[in-house]
C-alpha cells in the first residue's frame, strides 16, 4: 500500500450513480469502509447504495474535516488545533439548515457507514428538534403519519397527560395555536 508516494484514492458511488473520488484516509473515517479497505475487497468503485449523492457529499465533507483535525493534532502541537468549543461550534454549523428528511438520511448513512462522530452530531440535532414540541408538530416535522385511531389517541393522550402540563412557556404556546 505504501509503495506510491501520492495518496491512494478511493472511489465511492452513491445510490443515484454519482461517483466521488476521495483520499483513502478520508474514506477510512467511515469504519465500514475502513474494514473493507483493509480486507482489500474494494478495488474498483465502492457502491454505497443506500446513500444519495447530496447526502454522500455531506458525509465526505465531514470525513475530510475529521482527517484535517487528526492530522494537525497528531503531527505537531499545532496552535491552531481546535478547542472543544470550536469543535462544537463547527458541528453546529455543519448541521445548520439541515432539514428533517436530510437529517434522517444522514443518520442512516452514518449509521451504515459507522461514523460515530457524525452519528452523534445527527442525534444531537434530532434531539434539539424534538425538544419542546407537541406531537402534531413532531409529526409535521418528520413526516410521521398519525396511525392512531381516535380512541387510541385519546387514551394515549390521557396516559401521558402529565407530560403536557407544564411551565407558562408551554401554556403560551398552546394558547397561541
Amino acid at each position: 500500500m505504501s509503495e506510491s508516494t501520492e495518496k491512494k484514492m478511493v472511489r465511492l458511488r452513491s445510490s443515484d450513480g454519482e461517483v466521488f473520488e476521495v483520499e483513502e484516509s478520508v474514506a477510512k473515517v467511515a469504519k465500514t469502509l475502513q474494514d473493507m479497505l483493509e480486507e482489500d475487497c474494494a478495488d474498483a468503485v465502492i457502491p454505497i447504495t443506500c446513500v444519495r449523492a447530496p447526502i454522500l457529499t455531506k458525509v465526505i465533507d465531514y470525513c475530510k474535516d475529521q482527517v484535517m483535525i487528526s492530522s494537525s493534532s497528531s503531527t505537531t502541537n499545532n496552535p491552531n488545533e481546535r478547542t472543544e468549543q470550536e469543535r462544537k461550534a463547527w458541528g453546529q454549523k455543519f448541521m445548520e439548515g439541515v432539514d428533517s428528511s436530510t437529517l434522517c438520511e444522514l443518520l442512516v448513512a452514518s449509521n451504515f457507514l459507522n461514523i460515530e462522530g457524525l452519528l452523534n452530531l445527527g442525534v444531537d440535532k434530532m434531539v434539539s428538534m424534538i425538544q419542546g414540541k407537541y406531537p402534531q408538530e413532531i409529526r409535521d416535522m418528520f413526516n410521521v403519519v398519525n396511525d392512531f385511531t381516535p380512541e387510541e389517541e385519546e387514551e394515549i393522550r390521557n396516559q401521558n397527560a402529565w407530560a403536557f402540563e407544564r411551565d407558562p412557556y408551554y401554556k403560551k404556546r398552546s394558547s397561541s395555536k
Partner: protein
Amino acid sequence: MELACQATQGTSPNTKNFVHNPWYEEASSTSLEGLISPAITIFHSSEVTCKVLGKISVSNFDSSEDITTSPGRKACSSYESSTTIQRSITDLPAALVSEILHCLDAKELGVVSCVSTALNRIASDHHGWKEFYCERWGMPLGNLFPTEKSWKELFIEREFRTKIFMGRYSVDALYGHTEAVRFLNHSSEFRLWEHEGPVTCLALDSLKIYSGSWDMSVRIWDRIQLKCVKILRHGDWVWSLVPCGSTIATSAGRDAYIWGAESGKQVSVIQNVHVGNAYSLARSLSGDLLFTGGEDGAIHMYKVPKDDTDENITCIATWVPHNGPILSLAFEFPWLVSSSSDGKVALINVRKLLRSSCQSSSRSRVRVISKLPPAVEPPQRMLHGFGPNLFSVDIGADRIVCGGEEEVLQKCHFKANSSSSIIRRFPHPPFTLDSLSGTLRSINVALRSYSSSEPKPISCSHSRCKRNNTELFGIKTVKYRNKG
C-alpha cells in the same frame, strides 16, 4: 421474495464487493432476469422499488439487529418518487431511534409517545424510564413496587406524588427523646468512640457510616467491622456531609469540599460559600446538584460536573427564605427543604430552574447555560408552627420530618389530593424514624420509610457521655417509634 433474494446473491459474483444494502437486494430482486449490473438496477428501478418497499421485511436495515417491524410500513407512503424522497424518523432503525430518545427528558419522552404507534412502542418501553426514576429517587426498595409495572408507570406515579407537598398536611409530634426509647434490636446497638470533639453530622450508606466533627475531621466507618477506615482532615470545624456514590461532599467552616470516597483525596473545593459558617448540605441522588445552607441565611444551588469533565462547579441559584441561619437541608427531586433557626421550614421546587436550563441538548440532563450571577428565587412554600431552632429536616415518602430544640420530632404528613384519582397510594410500613440526638447543635433525622424490606432499618445517634471524667464523643444507634 426470499427465494429471489437468495438467487440474486447466488448469481451475482460481485456480491461480496458490495456494501451490503437492503435497497439493492430489493431492487435487484424485482429485475432478476435482466441480470443488469446492480447499481444500475437501482438507478433504473427506483420506481419499482417504491412499490415493493411496502413489503420489505424486517431485514430491511440489516445493520441493526433489534429493528422492529415498524419502519417499513410507513416508509412506503413517503417514497412517492425517486427524486424527492422524504424520509421520516420512523424510517430509522429502532436502535437509532432509541438512541435519540435516550437524550430526551421524561416529559419530552411522554410527548413523543403520543406521536404514532411505532414511536409510542419504542418510547414506552424505553430503558430511560428506569434511569429517570433512579436518578431522582434511587432504586425502589422492597416489594412495595410490584414488578409487573413498567418503569414508566412507576415514574409517573412518583411524579404525581411530588406535587403533594403543596397540598394539605397534618403534623405529628414524636416524643422519642424524652420518652423511653424502644430498641427494636438490641444487638444492633453500638458505639463508636474516636472523635475528639462533638459530632455534628452523620450519614449512612449500605457499607459505611460517615461522621463529621468539630475535631476538624470526617471519619468513615465500616459498618460491619465498626472500625474507622478513613479520616478526612479539614481546616475548620466540620458542619455537614453528604456521601454520594464515589464522592463525599462536606462543609467545614465557610467552605464546601468534595472528596473521593475511595482515595480520601480532595477532589474540589468551593471557598467562601457563605458569609459565616456553611451549616448544611444536600445533594441530588445523581450527585450533579449540591445545595449549601449557611449562617447568612442563604441557600445556594451548585451544579457539580461529572468526574471526566474539567468544568468548574457553578452556582445556579440562590434562595434566602429564612430570617435566620439555615441549619439543615434535604432534597428529594424536585423538592428542596430547608429548616432554620427562625423555626420555619421552606419548600423550594427546583424543577423550573432545571427545565429552563436543559435546552442546550444532549447527554447531561442537568445543564445550565447562563454564566450570569445567579438569581434569587422565592421559595414555593413555608411551613410554620414549630419551635425555634429547627436543627434538622428530612423529606421522603410524602413526609417531612424535622427536629429541633424542643427535643421533639415533628412529622408533617402530606395528603394526596383526592381529586387526582390516578395516584395510587401504597400502604406504608409502620413508620420508622431514625433519629439522632446529642448536643443540641446537631440533631439529625434520617427517614427510611421504604426500608421495611431491609433487615435492619438504619439509625444512628451520636451522643456525648462522661467516662472517667473525660468527655468522649461517639455514635450510637437508637431507634425511635411513633408514640402510641
